[in-house]
């Protein structure tokens, strides 16, 4: 087999795993968009905040330590114990649920029946607030996140592909785990939204607030539920990205990569987020591989957006999005 083909295959494989990481972030967007028609700009920051909180709990950091020290003149930073990961994750989930509840209480409750653009602006505000809060609570330095997922080259994949092609593909073990986790997450979410009454209620709320109220659905409960699930998805994304590249504030920018993923997959489809992520991931790796000799590197910075733009021309609702039917 020619080397170029093998290299291209390896690039595509790595693209698939990178795509899964994009999809993890995109999932959170889809959930909130499905349930409330809001494009939640703060989804990326939620992932960052969840990861920060998890690391903070693991390391026994004292929240707001800098603030406390500045006000009281003390020098405290750590409680002096480490929380085991199995305890820190549920604790972080609890924090994300509390956050969802507060968002409903303080922000969404007052914006019922407002235009989507108003709600969108509110989530931009929320994003900056949460970024500031994360900084204030846990500090701004880059942190290492270790939840026990093995990292580094996957020996199994290397051996297997060497046996087949005489050339071992490089694949990070962490990415393989991300694949498995994403598969489980999507299965659970799809089952939830298609086959449970909460899922049906969630779709109903997304469609028409008034009608949902009239059949006995509590909007507030559904919103807290949706934002809680989005918070948990954000935590999963935060863990995977944090383990890959450290918990740092640039994490909140991965949210921007989720945008083209959503345009491809459709804003309302959970499987669409995964497929969109994979297409973007593979597309940008292969494009970079083949086009680099002609147009230089760093195509990954813009390729996804170009692809999304081309997509908008032909299928604006995305691959799996709901087609908008308008009777005239």
């Amino acid at each position, binding site marked *: 087999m020619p080397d170029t083909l093998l290299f291209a295959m390896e690039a595509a494989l790595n693209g698939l795993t990178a795509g899964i990481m994009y999809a993890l972030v995109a999932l959170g967007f889809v959930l909130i968009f499905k349930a409330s028609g809001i494009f939640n700009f703060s989804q990326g920051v939620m992932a960052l905040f969840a990861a920060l909180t998890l690391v903070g709990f693991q390391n026994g950091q004292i929240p707001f330590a800098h603030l406390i020290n500045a006000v009281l003149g003390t020098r405290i930073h750590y409680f002096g114990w480490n929380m085991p990961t199995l305890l820190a994750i549920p604790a972080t989930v609890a924090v994300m649920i509390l956050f969802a509840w507060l968002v409903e209480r303080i922000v969404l409750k007052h914006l019922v029946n407002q235009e989507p653009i108003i709600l969108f602006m509110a989530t931009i505000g929320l994003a900056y607030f949460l970024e500031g809060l994360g900084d204030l609570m846990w500090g701004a330095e880059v942190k290492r996140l270790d939840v026990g997922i093995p990292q580094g080259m996957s020996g199994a994949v290397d051996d297997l592909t060497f046996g087949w092609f005489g050339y071992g593909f490089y694949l990070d073990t962490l990415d393989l785990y991300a694949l498995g986790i994403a598969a489980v997450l999507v299965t659970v979410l799809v089952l939830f939204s298609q086959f449970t009454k909460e899922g049906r209620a969630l779709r109903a709320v997304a469609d*028409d607030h008034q009608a949902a*109220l009239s059949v006995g659905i509590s909007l507030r409960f559904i919103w807290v539920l949706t934002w809680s699930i989005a918070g948990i998805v954000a935590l999963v994304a935060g863990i995977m990205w944090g383990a890959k590249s450290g918990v740092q504030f640039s994490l909140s920018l991965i949210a921007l990569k989720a945008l083209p993923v959503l345009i491809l997959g459709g804003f309302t489809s959970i499987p669409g987020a995964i497929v969109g992520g994979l297409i973007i991931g593979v597309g940008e790796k292969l494009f970079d591989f083949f086009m680099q000799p002609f147009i230089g590197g760093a195509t990954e910075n813009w390729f996804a957006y170009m692809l999304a733009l081309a997509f908008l021309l032909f299928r604006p609702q995305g691959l799996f999005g709901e087609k908008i039917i308008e*009777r005239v």
Partner: protein
Amino acid sequence: MLDTQDDGYMTADGRKIGGVAMEMKNITLRFGGVVAIKDISFDIRWGEIRAIIGPNGAGKSSMLNVISGFYHPQEGDVFYKGFKRPRMRPYQVAQQGIARTFQNIALFEGMSVLDNIMTGRLNHMNAGFLKQALWWGPAAREEEENRAKVEKVIDFLEIQHIRKTPVARLPYGLKKRVELARALAAEPEILLLDEPMAGMNVEEKEDMCRFVLDVNDEFGTTIVLIEHDMGVVMDLSDRVVVMDYGKKIGDGTPDEVRNNQEVINAYLGVAHD
């Protein structure tokens, strides 16, 4: 559903009307400086078809919104099953067995007819969501029971042929019927219909009239209905409340209301001489 109280009466066509199900006492509703409803009192009896009529802007829909908890009156109380109802959110009212339809159809446009009607069953589902998701034990049975009930409603309203169609594709008359189906699926004790025949052609109107009567007859559902078409109202209803400019100007059987001078004036106008 019929109350055991013996203060009910028999209708001419032999239906038993029970005691008072719901009572409005001195309801006043204001929007800023505009008074939509002025000190209105009336009652609704179990099993009856109670109509609210009046010219445009009389406050009929506002009244229905007060009953269903979408509006909260500044003064007055709603008594349901003999108890004063505390301030409730619309979804809590719905959970108490009061279903409604809207003047400008409020359906879940993106969902199929079947899914829309299934949302009416939400308050009859109790299994935990994990079990539901996995189609497990009691959850599966519950879903089947609910589906069976929904299929009955679909049969009843003769909309079998559109069960899988997304609601957005349906013509207006059918949408109205689907909305009625969703309200019926909740097995309500009281059904509120806001202009169920508005914008329909004669044939569709006749169908809808038949459905309203059948619902009342077969399930014994108490029906409160707002309608413009006087012919329809007089044929359907047992008792009629007439509103004009937010005030109640008449209340009684269709015949009583028809001969009420104030009602005639409101509808036909008064000669100024």
